[in-house]
């Protein structure tokens, strides 16, 4: 990268099943204002706006970036829309960081959102339509067989997924912005919840949320001027692969492994498990925690479940995962990737409140989407690259 890029402002909405108190513009605005406030900046300080969200079909608004421009101070400024399915939030952060790293702009606002209550992603992911599979099953119906494949291949104990679901909901209790605050969460409660997409139980899946996330990126000189030290972007990576081809390993896609290798190489990381202090990863179904622990090379193939089982991924473990409560606790789809990236940045800035990992200096933000085929990741740190 040519220029260094720092994250100087982070904001998110309270995520909820129905944010009936705000319109779509009101929702994105809430996150963006909080990011500006955190950065001690105003709309006029922003050079360009990058907006990310999942398919337009989700809310039925074509090209929402045009309609949202006024609310985001975007009039007369460069404005870009990003879309890479469920990984879009992550890609939005990467595009914004790239604009600064490339020296194109000095300050960029990235905003990602979904107002799931205005439509129904389950339907949008289920209907027969071009570029999509007619599963009549939603995302869970698509991913359940992959999870079953992982369970068989790894021989992981059957309650691994339940343990992840409990851990993430306990973490969410420490995050005031999380959608789900389940005071009564327990192993038995998850185990007894209905089998929705066998082998995935209801409480092992993510909720449908309304929510938005925003971040302000600044060039080195401007980033150094902020009161709260910035989170420095050390590395970003994106990889993708087709949904279907013969010999494709859908449980552990090559694109995930290639992405991880590229990311660590750029960040100068040789032992990710040891060098990364905490990781916020895209886990919409509980079993994806052990799967992505392998996909991000924290564990050997088929051994990711041991990290969950041994408590390594707990908030007080040696590599905490999903400190915020993760996608399992809040899922405004388009924003979910950026929320992961934002949590990584909050951690290294020491702004994570009750879910802060002590002494976190280097963190991973991770998102994936489509049929386990789009990957976006970054490494951020309190130290300059």
């Amino acid at each position, binding site marked *: 990268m040519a220029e260094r890029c720092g994250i100087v402002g982070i904001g998110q909405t309270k995520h909820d099943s129905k*944010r*009936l*108190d*705000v*319109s*779509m*513009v*009101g929702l994105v605005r809430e996150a963006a204002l909080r990011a500006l406030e955190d950065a001690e900046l105003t*709309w006029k300080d922003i050079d360009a706006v990058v907006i990310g969200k999942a398919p337009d079909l989700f*809310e*039925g608004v074509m090209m929402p970036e045009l309609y949202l421009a*006024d*609310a*985001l*101070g975007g*009039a007369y400024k460069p404005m870009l829309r990003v879309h890479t399915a469920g990984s879009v939030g992550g890609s939005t952060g990467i595009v914004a960081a790239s604009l600064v790293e490339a020296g194109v702009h000095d300050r960029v606002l990235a905003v990602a959102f979904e*107002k799931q*209550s*205005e*439509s*129904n992603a*389950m*339907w*949008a992911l*289920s*209907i*027969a*339509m*071009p*570029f999509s*599979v*007619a*599963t*009549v*099953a*939603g995302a*869970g*119906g698509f991913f*359940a*067989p*992959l999870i*079953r*494949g992982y369970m*068989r*291949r790894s021989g992981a104990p059957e309650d691994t997924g339940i343990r992840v679901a409990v851990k993430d909901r306990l973490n969410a209790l420490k995050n005031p912005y999380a959608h789900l605050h389940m005071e009564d969460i327990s192993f038995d409660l998850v185990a007894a919840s*209905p089998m*929705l*997409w*066998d*082998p*995935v139980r209801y409480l092992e899946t993510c909720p449908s949320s309304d929510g938005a996330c925003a971040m302000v990126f600044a060039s080195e000189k401007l980033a150094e001027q902020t009161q709260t030290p910035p989170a420095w972007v050390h590395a970003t990576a994106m990889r993708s692969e*087709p949904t*279907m*081809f*013969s*010999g*494709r*390993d*859908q*449980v552990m896609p090559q694109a995930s492994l290639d992405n991880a290798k590229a990311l660590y190489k750029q960040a100068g990381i040789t032992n990710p498990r040891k060098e990364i202090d905490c990781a916020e990863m895209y886990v919409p179904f509980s079993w994806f925690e052990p799967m992505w622990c392998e996909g991000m090379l924290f564990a050997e193939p088929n051994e990711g479940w041991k990290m969950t089982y041994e408590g390594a991924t707990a908030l007080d473990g040696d590599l905490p995962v999903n400190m915020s409560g993760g996608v399992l606790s809040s899922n405004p789809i388009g924003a979910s990737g950026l929320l992961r990236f934002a949590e990584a940045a909050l951690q290294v800035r020491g702004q994570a409140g009750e879910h802060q990992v002590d002494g976190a200096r280097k963190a991973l933000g991770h998102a994936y989407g489509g049929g386990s085929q789009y990957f976006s990741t970054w490494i951020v740190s309190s130290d300059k690259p």
Partner: protein
Amino acid sequence: MSELPPITYTLEYPYTRTTGPVVGAFLTALRDGRILGSRCGDRVICPPLEFDPDTAEPVAQDLVEVGPGGTVKSWTWIAEPTRKHPFQQPFAFALIVLDGADTALSHAVKARGIDAMSTGMRVRAQWREERASAVTDVYFVPEADAVDTYVPPGEGEVELTEHLISLDFKEAIHPFRERFARGLIAGKFIGQKSPVSGKVYIPSKGYDPLARVAMTEADDVELPPVGIVAGYTVITPVQYYGQKETEPYIRASILLDGADQPLGQQDIKNIPHDEFRSGMRLRAVFRPESERKIVEMDNRWGSTGGVIDHWEPTGEPDAPPEKYLEHLF
């Protein structure tokens, strides 16, 4: 052989919109016979926006009444309306600057003919008898045609609106897909074998996705109606719009013997869920020939639901995992 039905789709879903304070007030007033604009600095913007495009600050919360008369700034004639247009007779879409407003509202003008339209002409809002708290509660006519009617106020504030949005479209089907579909109707599974990798795809997309070479009719191969369960899930249906299933059902991917890519999302039907498992060998049972129809076929995935009635166990021993673990879907 009879023609395949055209490949058509209808995307349809009821969406909602949380209006927020400004648009909610606008729609409430519109229902009650008044048009409101928002004040942004020295300007009045109609339709109103929540945030001032110049400063990004919230607009003043007290909206101001504009119209019901206005001036046409530009227009276009719709000679052949579609079923979704506001009128089923020829009409105009126009940019109308309402009296008291500084920006134009894009709306429909019901004029007697194209000759009745001109830039700079005066128009006036008319309210529909049936109102739905939507921008279509109103339409415009040339000033001379206007009739003032009493608009009885509705109840409550508009905070949430509902919209059934639908889209119809057609797609030309790829030649291979047509042969695949005709094969299904004849009770056969037609795939394609890559001339480069030797991998057998069903349904094929007409090219080898890894070698990126086109495949032709010469690469077509017939596969037996027998295969193994590569992966599956039992789905407990959630009753979202368009869901037809009410009881738990299986969706399985089935790797036909000789194929390198499974048929995804197969409906299993007659096998008890607790007996179903990966590795199980199954045979496709086709519907009677007269009842076979191609539904939901497209150029990417291909559906077999209108052709295969169900899958039945062959009774052979299960296949070992290494035969199917790389073929989940």
